[in-house]
């Protein structure tokens, strides 16, 4: 992903037939000359193997009736637990709660995209028009700072504001209204999630779009002004077309990661009173595994999530590469 306009390598590649034998020979020649280059890869590969690839073996749990006491350690128990085929998945797909959490995941992240996706674009265009350097810098810094707060800190801040005895409810009460239980009312809880997500992320995304706007050729604006284009026409005919690749890329990414985002936020913000509207796949995976200790069902649901997410992300990347020649990796 390059947002600075650098073009991907486009050197003409002429394939030549190299025999496997020659390849192996070349490898050994290079290896003898640069042994430290291979040594350098060891720490990274070690962590990659331990934390990313070893868990892949644990996926077998999804097809087994897992019993932790069968093995010397949890991974050994995977090997020794009996196979049950697709039983865990059948259990999952037959449970109405599964469809509920799937729907919640899509609804919550869908709402976030619908409400929050256009905002940073608007902010960046507005911020770009501001001429006073100090104000511009101040605004950029101010809206960017929440991005660096953890979800727990943000929860603390908003709990303080929107809690039963928070300042918002005091105001509502003073105006003669009823106290709103923002964190336990199923009707408003999703709005709390969307709002706080916006509060955290808008500044960050604005900076991305702002960087893209600075890449637009200034002479285009000059030409448009000479032709008598007012500010709206300049935005419509110069800024937006210039931003379009970034906008499309960001949208593709947002949709591609729709199953993978928002987990930590929901985990911190939700409580049993709002499970019905807030429980998403990942939080359910977490409670199934760590709360109910149902490792098999939890792994099955996690695997379902990973497979769909994999398809979405690879699909998103393919679209991005085809239309924008930009790749996530």
């Amino acid at each position, binding site marked *: 992903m390059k947002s600075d306009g650098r073009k991907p390598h486009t050197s003409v590649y002429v394939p030549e037939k190299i025999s496997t034998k020659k390849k192996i020979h070349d490898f050994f020649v290079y290896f003898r000359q640069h042994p430290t280059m291979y040594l350098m890869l060891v720490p*990274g590969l070690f962590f*990659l193997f*331990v934390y990313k690839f070893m*868990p*892949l073996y644990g996926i077998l749990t999804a097809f087994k009736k897992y019993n932790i006491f069968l093995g010397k350690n949890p991974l050994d128990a995977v090997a020794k637990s009996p196979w049950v085929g697709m039983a865990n998945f059948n259990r999952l797909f037959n449970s109405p709660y599964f469809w509920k959490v799937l729907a919640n995941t899509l609804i919550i992240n869908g709402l976030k995209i619908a409400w929050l996706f256009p905002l940073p674009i608007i902010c960046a265009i507005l911020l770009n028009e501001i001429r006073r350097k100090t104000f511009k810098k101040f605004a950029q810094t101010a809206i960017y700072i929440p991005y660096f707060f953890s979800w727990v800190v943000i929860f*603390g801040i908003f709990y303080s504001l929107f809690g039963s005895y928070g300042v918002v409810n005091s105001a509502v009460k003073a105006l003669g209204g009823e106290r709103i239980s923002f964190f336990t009312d199923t009707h408003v809880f999703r709005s709390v999630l969307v709002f706080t997500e916006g509060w955290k992320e808008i500044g960050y995304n604005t*900076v991305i779009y702002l960087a893209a706007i600075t890449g637009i050729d200034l002479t285009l604006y000059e030409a448009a002004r000479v032709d008598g284009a007012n500010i709206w026409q300049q935005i419509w005919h110069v800024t937006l077309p210039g931003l379009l690749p970034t906008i499309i890329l960001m949208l593709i990414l947002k949709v591609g990661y729709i199953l993978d985002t928002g987990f930590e936020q929901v985990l911190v913000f939700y409580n049993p009173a709002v499970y019905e509207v807030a429980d998403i796949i990942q939080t359910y995976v977490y409670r199934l595994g760590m709360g109910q200790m149902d490792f098999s069902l939890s792994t099955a649901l996690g695997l379902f999530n990973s497979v769909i997410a994999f398809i979405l992300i690879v699909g998103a990347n393919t679209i991005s590469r085809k239309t924008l020649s930009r790749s996530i*990796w």
Partner: protein
Amino acid sequence: MSKEKQKAKESVLASEKFFRGIAYVFMTILSLMAILPCLHVISKAVSTGENVISGNVLFWPRGFQLEAISYVLKETEFFNALKNSLIVTICGTAIAVFTTITTAYPLSKSSFKGHKVITMFYVISMVFYGGMVPAYMVVRTLGILDTYAACILPFAIVPFNMFVMKSYFEGLPESIEESARMDGAGDIKILTAIVVPMSKPVIATITLLYAITYWNNYFHVTMYTKSASMRTLQVYLYNVIYNSQTFAENTLNGLTININSEGILAAAVTMSLVPIVALYPFVSRYFIQGITIGSVKG
């Protein structure tokens, strides 16, 4: 004709002026929306108890006391949590930056035999996730549950950061490295004496990305640690927020009015905000720079 042109020019200028007005108003509102909630919580932490309970505190302290903050510092596990957060963040970031550089450098060389296969490993790990329980099983099998190692492991190398670093290395001029090689410098010497100094901006950015990831991490720490003494600042704060009612009962047991549930919550949040807010002015430019270097998703 020229009169018409003049008129058109004026209307263009008028539209721009109008738009700029909107921009100032809108951005002022947004900036306030970002800052005021923080000010509110800080004000609440230092306002007197009566004002906090009656909801009088808005965005500036009403009255002044430091009892709530001193209660949080002395009577809760704040310093222990801070210590844990610092250990995890400093060690984790050091390890992660080291592995990221040492991985990105060989992979950035197209002459490096095997770079395609190894790069593929990292791509696979980015798109396919083993899952929460399998990762937990690994951590438990390794016998590192409830240790700092378990908190550090998840981000010891983040493939995305590695790819940002790699693409930066690829953009460096080859000629300097070549001439050093002519002078007999080995791979490690070239990396430490030439490539790293030339890559300071991207290294600063990646370091901060890792640091913020470790500092803010809540989920992996709750998942991989059990004992209260291992709580990092985020886990500690989460517990304070959920248990603030229990603290409130202490108020009835003879503590002063300034120490109430709302005030304690606000004081704990404030103390967790302070390190980030204090460091932010010094590091923000590296983050903004990071976005222009070529990251879209942190």
